[in-house]
């Protein structure tokens, strides 16, 4: 991937409004090079989308202050597209707490609570910091204060229904069994969060991001409807290997990038 340094705000009349995609590991499904080793810099997202860039830096399971400083600088007079975190539901709930809980999904037409689960009010789950993308609101406010034309908060990839095949298989791995035993848990008996509940948690997380975006004056962009199957899971064509169930594949990126570009174009038309 070719990297590019670009001075902000040097658009000629008629040029399309530029956007920068920045954030965490879900950027890689969109085409950002995982093995990138260069300095913090912009890189074109796709030849067919000439006004879009990734903000790149070598990935080390997170982003440092220099990365966000660079984003604030590059986002001046451009649109910043934030793809922050997005795996909180897995990171806190792959192993189910006790008692198992579920959340009403008001958007699912055929929602029924998971059998035996305690129903926790959606507001109560949202009030917990566990699903909150850390630093999102502050980042939006900073980007806007430092001259970003607009900030879009991108939705994160939906849950794939078959992730439970992977989690069930964890029971057979000696390494995970030993780790669980070290924490006082018997992996052969512990409960994993079922797919319908994880799907609900993903929905809550999208709602939290939307709330945060609107509260800070940003735009929330839900995932493209085409990546969802009729049950609201990540559709099969957008799933990668099962061992990487927390991330979507490159075809997901091929659907998501034009979706983002279209949202930026819509903002431009609306006068952003």
């Amino acid at each position, binding site marked *: 991937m070719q990297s590019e340094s670009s001075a902000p705000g040097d658009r000629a009349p008629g040029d399309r409004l530029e956007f920068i995609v920045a954030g965490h*590991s879900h950027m*890689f499904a969109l085409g950002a090079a*995982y*093995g990138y080793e260069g300095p913090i810099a912009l890189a074109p997202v796709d030849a067919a989308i000439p006004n879009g860039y990734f903000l790149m830096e070598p*990935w080390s*399971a997170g982003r440092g202050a220099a990365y966000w400083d660079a984003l604030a600088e590059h986002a001046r007079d451009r649109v910043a597209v934030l793809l922050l975190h997005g*795996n909180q539901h*897995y*990171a*806190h*709930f*792959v*192993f*189910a*707490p*006790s*008692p*198992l*809980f579920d959340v*009403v999904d*008001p958007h699912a037409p055929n*929602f029924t*609570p998971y059998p035996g689960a*305690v*129903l*926790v*009010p*959606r*507001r*109560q*789950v949202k*009030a*917990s910091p*566990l699903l909150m993308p850390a630093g999102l609101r502050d980042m939006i406010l900073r980007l806007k204060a430092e001259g970003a034309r607009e900030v879009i908060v991108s939705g994160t990839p939906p849950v794939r229904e078959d992730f439970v095949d992977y*989690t069930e298989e*964890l029971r057979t791995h000696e390494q*995970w069994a030993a*780790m*669980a035993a070290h*924490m*006082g*848990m018997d992996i052969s008996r*512990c409960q994993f969060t079922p797919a319908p509940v994880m799907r609900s948690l993903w929905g809550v997380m999208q709602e939290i991001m939307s709330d945060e975006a609107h509260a800070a004056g940003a735009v929330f962009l839900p995932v493209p409807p085409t990546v969802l199957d009729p049950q609201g899971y990540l559709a099969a064509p957008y799933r990668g*290997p099962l*061992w*990487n*169930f*927390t*991330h979507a594949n490159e075809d997901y990126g091929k659907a998501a990038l034009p979706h983002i570009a279209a949202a930026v174009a819509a903002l431009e038309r609306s006068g952003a």
Partner: protein
Amino acid sequence: MDHPYKSAADRAFWKRAFLTGWESTLAVGAPLIRRGERVASAGSCFAANIVPYLEAAGFEYVRRDRPPAVFADVIDDHFNYSRFSAAYGNIYTPRQASQMLKRALGRFKPIEDRWIVTADRIVDPFRPGLKYPAACEREFDWLTAHHLTEILAAVRTADVFVFTLGLTEAWVSSADGAVFPACPGTVAGRFDPDHHVFKNFSAAEIMQDLTELIDLLREVRPGLRVVLTVSPVPLVATATGEHVLVANIYSKSVLRVAAGEVSRSRPDVSYFPAYEIVTGPQAPYDFFEADRREPSRLAIDAVMRAFLSRCEGAPDQVQAGAVQLTPATADAWNDDAARQLSKLVSEAQCEEAAAGL
């Protein structure tokens, strides 16, 4: 000359009834709770106090409709929803309790069953203090249905049900008599004099409602034993027009009479004198806090010492102040381990993805 008082125990004589350890002589008979039995409870705010003592003494308290400990830091406990067996919060009158069971059994559907504050804030009139009301009517319907199911599950699981009577005064719906736990407009909702009317239950009504409550409980859980108590906490306010002191004594007297009558007339119903321990002339001044309304920790310890002395296999002593009164979070440690493992799985995915790419 011989007479019945000659052979009466010390406990029968006021002069000799309050020797050291007198609380254990307050009531006699079969144990209130036997070792291994599961206990559910409901009632006024004072009723919530028994739970940590029972658990500390090794009895199993039934808990349903309770979020995992992972959400413990966002549980609102101002109205004791997390301190009873199925998140119903304080229940002050037996009619409110029996209506709740009838709702759970599908026999009563209050006309005023929700307060739509805004489109995204639907308040339950029967749990108006919930910190996290439903975000839409659909969620409200599910949460309510789930709550009512969990109430039945709690009763079915229990061997003993402790019910603490709190008030005779209530506000009810003029449409169908549905009893609200608080006057609409105080905790939530809007007071409407055309729809919300004051009711001060008589002794006969309380007795009838208690009897009906016990019948309903035993319909759900045949053989359930019941322990009745009266809360020593005075009314916070009265709507009778009388002085609150007069209204309070009337209310507590009615409740005490009803509890006594019903416990004598129904099998396997016991009365436990928590009210007497805290409010009787023998009670020390410091059994109430400075506001003369809130029972002190000393009083609660004394009540529970006496209560546990009537339970099989309970420890002999309740150490003053030793029991943590805040809601238990027994699952917190397990949840923490589950979260740590979940995080490791999620991180491993990122590492494996790195290797794969």
